[in-house]
């Protein structure tokens, strides 16, 4: 699991944020949204998205359900839970603190 560690922080906050904007998205939609909102700069590695989603579901931040799409195929869609919203707020503020701290360092040195 150690290979996720570097990415985990940012991936979690990105996924949670996307789900708060666009609830009931499936995995592919979340991935596309990350790409879209970041102006094609960020791209979640497809390989790490699903373990992260399942981990967050086990943690109770998101919940999933299966829906039937128009094409007849089933898809698993995710949405935030109350705990997930709280978590998002925390992650966001932590992210802000860290980035502003990093920025400050970059400016002064």
């Amino acid at each position, binding site marked *: 699991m150690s290979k996720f560690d570097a990415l985990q922080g940012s991936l979690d906050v990105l996924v949670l944020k996307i789900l708060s904007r666009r609830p009931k998205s499936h*995995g*592919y939609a979340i991935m*596309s949204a990350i790409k879209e909102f970041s102006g094609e700069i960020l791209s979640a590695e497809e*390989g790490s998205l*699903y*373990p992260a989603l399942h981990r967050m579901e*086990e943690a109770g931040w998101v919940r999933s359900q299966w829906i039937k799409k128009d094409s007849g195929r*089933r898809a*698993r869609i995710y949405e935030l839970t109350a705990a997930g919203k709280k978590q998002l707020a925390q992650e966001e503020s932590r992210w802000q603190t860290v980035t502003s701290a990093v920025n400050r360092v970059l400016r002064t040195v």
Partner: protein
Amino acid sequence: MSLWSRIANVFHADRLHREIDEELQSHIDEAIEQGRDPAEARRAFGSLLRQREETRDMRLVAWLDSLRADAIFGWRRLRKSKVTSAAAILSLALAIGACTAAFRLIDALLLRPLRIAHPERLYALSRHGVGLDGKPSSYDSWAGPVVHLMRAAANDQAELIEVSYWERSDLTYGSDEEMEKGYLQYVSGWMFGSFGLRPALGRLMTGDDDKSGARPVAVLSYDYWSRRFARDPKVIGRTLHQGSNLYEIIGVGPESFTGTETGTMVDVFFPAMMHPSANRKDSTPFRTLVLVNPGVPVEPLRQKLAAISRAFEEERAKGFTDMPKAKIASYLNEAISIDRAAAGSSNLQKDYMQPLMALGTLVALVLLIACANVANLMTAQATARAREMALRVSIGAGRWRLVQLVLVESAWIAILAAAIGAAFAWWAAPFVVRMINPPDNPARLALPADWRILAFASALTLGVTFLFGLVPALRASSVKPASALKGGEDPHSRRRLMHALIAAQVAFCFLVLFVAGLFVATFERLSHRPIGFSADRLLLLDTVTAHAQQPAYWNEVADRLRAVPGVETVALAGWPLLSGYQSNNFLSLNGGPPIEPLAFFLNVSPGWLETMKIPLIDGRDFRADDVDPGAVIVNETFVKTFFNGENAIGKSFYRTYPRRIPSTIVGVVRDSRYNGMRERTKPVAYLPFRRNDAKGDLQPTRSATIIVRTAGANPLTLASLLRREVPRIRSEFRVSNLHTQQELIDAQTVRERLLAMLALFFAAVALLLAGIGLYGVLNYSVVQRRREIGIRLAIGAPASGIARLVTVDVFSMVLAGALIGVAIGMASVRTVETLFYQVKATDAGMLLLPALSLFAAAVLASLPAVLQAVRIDPVNTLRSE
């Protein structure tokens, strides 16, 4: 919540996999739908399998999942080799079950604290010195007055509690017609309060109920209240007669408290002051329990109590004018000790501590033998699995994963064995308790199966798993893939391990056989010891009367019973031989000082000798007019001891306690056992049943035994008839207890029979297990060495040479094991020496028998393997390799 769902997911792994696969697939489909190149989309996504694994690990507890997989795999392996698995599991089950049963008994009798407020602060007083018979003796009985003195002295440091030995006695709630038996105990009134007990009904006794002059009260035990009164609350206020006393029932004790006599459940508690000899200085009916206050050091307390006891006895010894001086000195020099009694204090504990420990050790050895068997089995299997293990290592299994794999298999065996063993223990422990049943007095031991037993069994199972599983597991995991896959691993290292295990097995087996042999020989010798009288067809009627009756009335009852059809002869005696009762006294010859050793006494009626079939060798039997003091009949040992074996007819002697009483010898009879099968033959004097008191008046009697020899082979067929007949002859007379003489004799050897039977059973199991183990190892080594044997046969080795080749290693191991067994046996058997009777560990026979049985078992076990080796067809073998 999360952990729980992750654990749950372990057991729904299939559904989890399906869902993950579907989700991942839908992702790729979506990508393709969005117009991405299918190949590119798949490549970008990476390995599906890895994705699935990683996602899956998020959803469940990974180690649990691997454990589950191993458990399933292990189960399949067990089922694949059903016979070997069943053999391993059953042998282990027997051993685990026996160990658990032994622990259950030891725990219930010796370890489990009484369910009172502070069992850890409870102690018992006992004294250790030299008995009147000159042998070291310890006893824990005290006279009421000295306990009261000690209690006053201990005052703020401890509470002293008198508890009488339990007695099984006649009591009645209505008329005398409805006499019934109950277990009674006289206890200090303050015992209930000191133990922090609360009544289930009514109130419990207090100190005030135990003051002389208080109205006699009784407290029922919960168990008795349930059995006898079906928990009727109206029992409070009812009265009960016992002896000549009337008691009022004031309450019922708590369910958890069955008395302090572990092994007996008391029915009715009476106040100590009501004991017939509660205030006598020369009678010691009470144990003394000491409930030490918190923080009080025990040793100074012991010294204080010992000083009071000594002062009391010194004062009392001033009255012993007619007793050997040395006896008085040694009597006063008794050491007093104070020991923990958290588990209560009873004779059953004293009698069965050593036997239970010995049996516990035997079953532990059997368990070790069974473990060695299974370990050998698994080691042999590990060879067959070397390739499988090598393959697992090659595709990346970690060493610990392999250890886990093999240990999980071991755990399967152990857990299944423990489950069967638990069922066995469930049945076996009460079975053993039922065996401890002298007539009318079965041991009543509470045998709860609670967390203590569960914890023991679980720890045992875990320990056993590691014991037989760890070494094979470590060996299996240390496999070197390259050499194993080539098929050329060093087989000797495995065989060395198996041989060491065989040696250990044989050593343990020898030990079990050896000890079992000693126990069996003890029982044989004890039960075949001549008793000096004929117990055939003897029925004993312990008879009591409401008020003491003149001997003439007793004779009338005996006479009338003689007329009952089926009765051959009838006689009266103070008590039956071998009943455990005794009466002794120091004698004086020619008016001299009291002399040693003690002489023993029994009052008997005319015709008693004939009824018992004790041969008269000189003089005459008692006549109807003989009375004590006066005529006496003595046995040969008595003549040898006090009259140098000379003609003793007409000689006389005095009993010295409580005053000098003369007797003149009118007859000499052959020796017989007096009150124990183990005892050395005692000098016994039989006194007339009729006796005069100090004033010279005939003394009435309240209890005696009517001894009936019946014509029919089974004396018990007359039992109920005679029981009814006695009160019909004289209404004051009542048969309170009825058994055969044979039952009393059997009761003398209950412990020895139990030990012999169980030890023999475990010896058979040990021998069987060791034989199976030996067979397994030999078989394995023949299979291993097929090629070598084939070559040897091909170049002309004779069959005898092959047989030697196959067996020589194993037989040297058997020899080594047996020698180790002898050494351990010799060294350890001394600890249980007191359980033996006329057998010595150094007897050649005692060593030869187990050695021969072991050797025979070894030969038998090696036969199939040798035959198999000799029949190997060189051509086939060499071609197939």
